[in-house]
């Protein structure tokens, strides 16, 4: 396939993300990477579960966590997962404008989530003096949730870069795989969050 065909395809194929060899490589490679990420987060979850009772003082999960904020965060992130699905839907229909719109909404929701998380951390630190260094539980909590937050941040930067870089030239076979795997990444972040709100917050509240 010539460069011209990749950058200015005459007709978009059904699955533009997998139309080129490079695209197929990215697609498979990224999924494999997510397999590795699964182990990464499992190790963090394991560490958290091993240390969530290693509290010092009264800063226990039950004492600290409030569910309303977590609920809002969950709704934001779950919805952003749907909006990124919409974006890919429009990508497959070769509707670049709509795709950008939905990606934009995804980014806004993600930012909302991140804001809430920062507020939450700030709240724990200032109101409860519960920090990364307070106890083994504190270290494990901030590390697990913080790694996830870091992923959210990276995802936001990534999607935004893609949007800006390609805003002028539209969809092609070179950038379609990039958009596609960015959306995979975003879904994966959501998957991790589902376990975080379940294991850290809900189970923490149950005690």
């Amino acid at each position, binding site marked *: 396939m010539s460069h011209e065909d990749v950058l200015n395809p005459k007709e978009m194929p059904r699955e533009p993300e997998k139309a080129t060899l490079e695209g197929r490589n990215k697609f498979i490679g990224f999924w494999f990477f997510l397999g*590795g990420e699964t182990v990464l987060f499992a190790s963090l979850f394991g560490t958290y579960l091993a240390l969530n009772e290693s509290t010092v003082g009264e800063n226990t999960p039950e004492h600290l966590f409030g569910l309303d904020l977590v609920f809002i965060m969950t709704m934001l992130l779950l919805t952003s997962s749907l909006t990124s699905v919409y974006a890919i839907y429009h990508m497959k229909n070769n509707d670049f404008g709509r795709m950008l719109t939905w990606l934009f909404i995804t980014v806004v929701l993600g930012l909302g989530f991140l804001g809430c998380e920062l507020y939450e951390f700030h709240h724990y630190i200032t109101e409860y003096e519960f920090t990364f260094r307070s106890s083994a539980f504190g270290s494990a909590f901030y*590390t697990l949730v913080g790694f996830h937050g870091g992923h959210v941040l990276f995802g936001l930067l990534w999607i935004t870069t893609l949007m800006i870089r390609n805003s002028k030239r539209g969809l092609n076979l070179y950038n379609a795989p990039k958009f596609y795997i960015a959306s995979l990444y975003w879904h994966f972040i959501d998957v991790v969050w589902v376990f975080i709100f379940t294991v850290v917050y809900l189970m923490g509240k149950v005690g």
Partner: protein
Amino acid sequence: MSTAVAQKGGLGAAIWDYLTTVDHKKIAHLYLVSGGFFFLMGGIEAMIIRIQLIKPDNNFIAAGLYNEMLTMHGTTMIFLAAMPIIFALMNAAVPLQIGARDVAFPFLNSLGFWLFFFGGVLLNISWFTGGAPDAGWTNYAPLSTTSPGHGVDYYTIGLQIAGAGTLIGGINFLVTIVNMRAPGMSYMRMPLFTWASFVTSTLILFAFPALTVGLFLMMFDRMFDAAFFDVAQGGNVIIWEHLFWIFGHPEVYILILPLFGAFSDIFSTFSKKRLFGYSAMVFATVLIGFLGFMVWAHHMFTVGMGPIANSIFAVATMAIAVPTGIKIFNWLFTMWGGNIKMTSAMLWSVAFIPSFTIGGMTGVMLAAAAADYQYHDTYFVVGHFHYVIVGGVVFGAFASIHYWWPKMFGKVLNEKLGKLAFWPFFVGFHLTFFIQHFLGLMGMPRRYWTFHEGLGLDTGNLISSIGAFLMFIGTFIFLINVIYTSVKEPKASGDPWDGRTLEWSISSPPPHYNFAQTPLVRGLDPLWIEKTEGKKGMTPAEPLGDIHMPNPSILPFVMSLGFFIAGFGFIYQTESKSFLALIFIGMGISLGSMLTRSLKDDIGHHIHKEDLKEGAGSE
């Protein structure tokens, strides 16, 4: 394009070429040279260890320095010598064996190398900045978290950077093997080395994240006062041990499996016979990889996990003897009825069988959980793992290097010198490590700076040290061989060994697009099939056409350099906050390169068919 530059200028251009290359064959050179260099470093550290232990109550080096020496020896050998040499072989052979022009992610391939390289350099800089890591290559907390100075900080950061490179390399090979096979190269026609690389890469994918997390926790504890391993604040030191071994055990199979694959190719080539029990060999490789994830706690039998956990892990560990045995017997029966030619590559491979079998057997003995209460952390274990690592990985590396040297560098290593290097190394190896089993049982713990007189350990240690000198001599002769060959030996043909697999169907070294026309694979040992039908080379699967190749890039180098700089920032910010600047600069460089990479389209270039060499590549 990259070759054009190299042709034009002198040394500078050649260096620039290697700094920017994304060609898997050149990346193989980079891996081999740096891995080889670190092997010599690790070997010299081993010599210092053996000199210190040559006699009782010796004082050749101080106790603290000894701990640094053994830590750096283990870490260097595993992460900076064995792993890169394996990646060198994978880069040199896998794309060629599957009939691909390139790997799936040439850019990431280069990034993987440079991350490993800078991680390794960072780790070794610790020698000059007030002390290397000294808590063993296993780096158990809280010895590591409380170790004074910055040695252990170098360990965490250096391995984190190098480990990221390894993970990237692993994913690259997985995708290459899944997506880039030539027409007709089905999974069950892949050479065993490619299969082993595939399984190894899978192990890397699942094992390294555990190390990543472990290193992050260690880093947070040491540099940011977290409390993961601080029992006073509710931390738990056993977490590190599990994370380390969840990574660490698969790691030893990551080391050995590619060489198992290489041995399979070598045995069948030099016996002029098809590999005996191909499908059983594939199955065994996969099974070893699979079981490799369920046995890590056999390193922790004495930690106090209780008899139930110990028993489960003991039995699971023993199970690995079965697929490994399948391999040993299939190799023997590959040679059975063959026409065995004892080249240097074959010599190393033949020597591997009894050596590794002994190592595997002591492994099974260690797996007997209760008995490990005696063996654990003694020289019995040191004997075991050097038998499998040196007798398996190092012998395998030497065999593969002899085997693929013509493909990598266009010349056959001198056979006489090859055999001359083998014998002292082989004899020295058994002298050094066989006696260590007995030393262990007679009461010598490992990681001992010195042992006392009167415990019956003197002669054994002396013999062991003598053996190490013989290994030194062997390695030295090998180095001479490399120089001699590059000066004196004639250029090799494309197929010097009467090979069976695709890499031997093209010239040595191959053109940078590998195959002018992608070959059509018609079965296992595709080149052999064509040869038995009287053809000279492979039948092409496509007409001659333009070839798409990736562009070289300096970004992987710069990106890794950024992390390297930031690494110092992380290490020294504990002393002065002004070092935070280094973190920002370094991360800025790295993130900047990433941004550049994603903003700048890089779709590669084409080689026009008029510029290709004639024919499908058979020389």
